[in-house]
């Protein structure tokens, strides 16, 4: 990094302090490294250094067959693995022009929304913890545990689910599972209110989040923010509404947006998304159609030559897959992920400039990144 520069200020020579936040730091949510240049406690500039968790998933995927890749997508956003699975499978289905049965699309919707709640729980917990509210962390993890139980019952895994197949679902949902999902919705409704009681009107929380990291709509779009971080700035962009996938076109839900675009707005947006997700889960579970769970999938998956980009709304933002098939081999020619965390993280230096060190952790939490996805 550059050497500290000496300012000749009004009266004294003051040194800028260069400080390495991470890659081992309790609030960088993994192995993120932020090189901060500080003037006192004020951030003059920040440089984000990533790649510590780079496993070459894109390169790996170009050497695995189409089915094996599902399992690699688990390892990207490991707090929302099912969403990555769905995104990948839908992209391949689009490439092959496969018809997915309605029941499978409904279950996908349920899983995606459960996953969104789980991911937001983790976000809420760590975000609150970064700002010092430690109890919310455990409350949020308590509810996330319930979702993990549901996933475990569905596919046997608790973190990396491998829960999708190209063309549909690998498994029929267990008997009684839908009832459990509805029960969970009932519990979660009350819990979201509990989180809000602890934080939404808490004076310290308001002071710590309001006016911190303000970014307006057009700038947020330009810098590539997506998902709740973009909606916090008042841009009603939601892939579920704009380019519906799975069964979202049959669901009724609202897209919450913020007004100012500060950390508090992003917080409110995600809290409201809890409720909207529950609403979607209820609709999908109650209206779950009967029928097959897998469409007409050829035994050997070999999409015709061509390329496509398909995006879904992951809990972090727009998760896109750009896949090129050469039509000859059994693995993709080019496998590209548009990771929402990566693109959102890009805005971090812009957001932290001029704020204090304590706000840096609040802002890292507020854009909700998972380093597994940033680095792939």
């Amino acid at each position: 990094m550059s050497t500290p520069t000496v300012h000749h200020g009004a009266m004294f020579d003051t040194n800028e302090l260069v400080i390495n936040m991470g890659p081992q730091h309790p609030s960088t949510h993994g192995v993120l490294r932020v090189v901060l240049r500080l003037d006192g406690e004020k951030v003059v500039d920040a440089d984000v250094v990533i790649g510590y968790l780079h496993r070459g998933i894109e390169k790996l995927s170009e050497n695995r067959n189409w089915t094996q890749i599902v399992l690699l997508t688990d390892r990207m956003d490991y707090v929302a693995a099912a969403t990555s699975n769905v995104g990948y499978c839908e992209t391949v289905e689009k490439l092959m022009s496969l018809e997915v049965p309605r029941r499978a699309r409904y279950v996908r919707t349920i899983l995606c929304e459960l996953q969104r709640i789980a991911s937001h729980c983790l976000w809420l917990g760590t975000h609150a913890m970064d700002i010092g509210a430690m109890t919310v962390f455990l409350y949020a993890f308590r509810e996330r545990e319930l979702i993990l139980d549901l996933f475990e019952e569905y596919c046997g895994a608790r973190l990396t689910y491998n829960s999708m197949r190209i063309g549909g679902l690998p498994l029929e949902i267990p008997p009684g599972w839908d009832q459990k999902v509805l029960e969970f919705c009932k519990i979660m409704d009350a819990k979201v209110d509990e989180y809000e009681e602890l934080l939404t009107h808490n004076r310290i929380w308001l002071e710590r989040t309001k006016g911190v990291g303000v970014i307006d709509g057009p700038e947020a779009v330009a810098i590539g923010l997506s998902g709740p971080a973009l909606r916090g700035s008042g841009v009603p962009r939601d892939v579920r509404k704009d380019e519906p996938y799975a069964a979202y076109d049959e669901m009724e839900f609202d897209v919450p947006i913020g007004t100012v675009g500060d950390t508090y707005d992003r917080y409110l947006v995600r809290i409201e998304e809890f409720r909207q997700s529950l609403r979607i889960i209820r609709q999908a579970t109650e209206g779950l159609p009967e029928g097959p769970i897998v469409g007409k999938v050829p035994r050997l998956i070999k999409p015709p030559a061509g390329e496509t980009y398909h995006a879904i709304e992951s809990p972090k933002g727009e998760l896109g897959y750009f896949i090129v098939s050469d039509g000859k081999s059994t693995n993709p020619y080019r496998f590209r992920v548009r990771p929402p965390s990566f693109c959102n993280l890009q805005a971090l230096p812009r957001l932290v400039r001029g704020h204090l060190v304590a706000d840096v952790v609040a802002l890292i939490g507020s854009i909700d990144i998972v380093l597994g996805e940033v680095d792939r």
Partner: protein
Amino acid sequence: MPKAAPPTGPPDPPPPADKTPPAFVASLQSAIAGSVTHVSYWVGDWTIVVPATQILNIARHLRDAPDAAFDLCSDVTATDWPPRGTGRFDVVYSLYSTRHRHRIRVKTIVGEHQPLPSVTSVWPAANWLEREIYDMFGVNFAGHPDRRRILMPEDWQGFPQRKDYPLEGPGELLMENPLDWLKLRQAKEEAEIE
């Protein structure tokens, strides 16, 4: 698996007769002459192929023209087609308009050392995405404000996402010092001959 000849590029089929390209493609063509060399439609996605030299003007037009208004650059990526020789890389921009809610894929073909103007000035979002392409493919972005490696270590040799990059990786030594690695490999081969 039989070793097939390496592909030379995506088919990029032209749109079927019943599909007409979106209006902004025509207006782009008329605003900047020769800007769209090919229009393709495949599984619901529209793709235009544009010349690399014009990319900055095209990007600006696509962002600012009211009928296009592509304000969100959702992805920039590349594909490597080694048999094509001079123009081995496809650089693919996936654009989205939050106003009109439509998408377009803009594709341009560049060679290994051929400079490609960076679109960071048009879409700041492209900054890291282009850095990643540089890191992974070695595409030479001109005018990029911060052209460093992003995912790989700063002293990494080679560009891992290229198709001719060894799958087993370069080995520990190559990473640190490629010359030592070459000597070591040579010595090893000579030892085997004896």
